[in-house]
């Protein structure tokens, strides 16, 4: 384990909060995301179809995109000091174009022998509800 990674690990305490980040999808960013993952489901770009046929209030923000944003909460926090071993998420509630979502995280366990840290994660809507809970395990050093 290099010195920076060790110092990072040693300084982590259960209860530490990860930096939050807000994401506001736009028509353009959602189009590019769905093009990049090759997803043609019309609820992500065709507003009249989305409201008239599938009865959503607005264009739907992809669940896996929220999963990605959640993973960035961990990746940007650990930088090059850690390696992502496990990442888990579930989409519990839909989110719509126009909403600003926030990624949150908190350290829940630390294993000194394995040099791993476990964290609870979430995507929070403007009402403060966790619409996608998740968790991750990061190993520090080697």
């Amino acid at each position, binding site marked *: 384990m290099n010195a920076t990674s060790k110092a990072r690990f040693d300084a982590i305490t259960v209860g530490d909060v990860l930096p939050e980040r807000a994401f506001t999808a736009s028509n353009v960013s959602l189009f590019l995301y769905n093009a990049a993952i090759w997803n043609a489901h019309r609820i992500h770009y065709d507003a009249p179809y989305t409201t008239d046929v599938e009865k959503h209030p607005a264009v739907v923000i992809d669940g896996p995109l929220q999963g990605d944003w959640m993973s960035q909460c961990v990746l*940007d926090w650990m930088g090059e000091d850690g390696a992502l071993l*496990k990442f888990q998420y579930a989409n519990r509630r839909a989110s719509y174009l126009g909403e600003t979502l926030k990624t949150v995280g908190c350290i829940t366990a630390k294993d000194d022998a394995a040099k791993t840290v476990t964290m609870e994660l979430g995507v929070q809507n403007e009402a403060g509800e966790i619409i996608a809970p998740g968790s991750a395990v990061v190993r520090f050093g080697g």
Partner: protein
Amino acid sequence: MPSMVSDEARSWIGRSQPPIHMEVTRRDIQKYAVATEQRQQKFLDGDEAPPMFLFGLLRPIVPLDGLGPDGIARDGFLPDFPLKRIMAGGTEMTYHRPLRPGDKLIATKTLADIQEKQGGSGPLIFVSYDLTVETEDGEVVVEERSTRIIR
């Protein structure tokens, strides 16, 4: 209560889809990184793929007439159940190393389990899939367990 999972449906447990062959390119990583608003240069430059990049890499490319009027490709890897509404459950990934440009990967998806549960608003069926992504040399790169909820 009679089972909602027929013997025929149950016989799908352990069944695998034909392996999917995938090639990771820098350009695909760069597109994904921009669209997902990544901040790290290694992702934006396409030197390394963000962990969730795999989700898009696995999506099937089917002819236009294979897409329904909703724009979704028909997915045959689900047995017939008396319940029809399909929702995504959770996904759990185990990463052995990041994906990089030039990786040639083989993904194998197996229907791992079918469970019946009584939910607050009626019966539910949980279908779990195990996915293994490995190199052509057999090095396991990512493992994934995902669940679909049918109600």
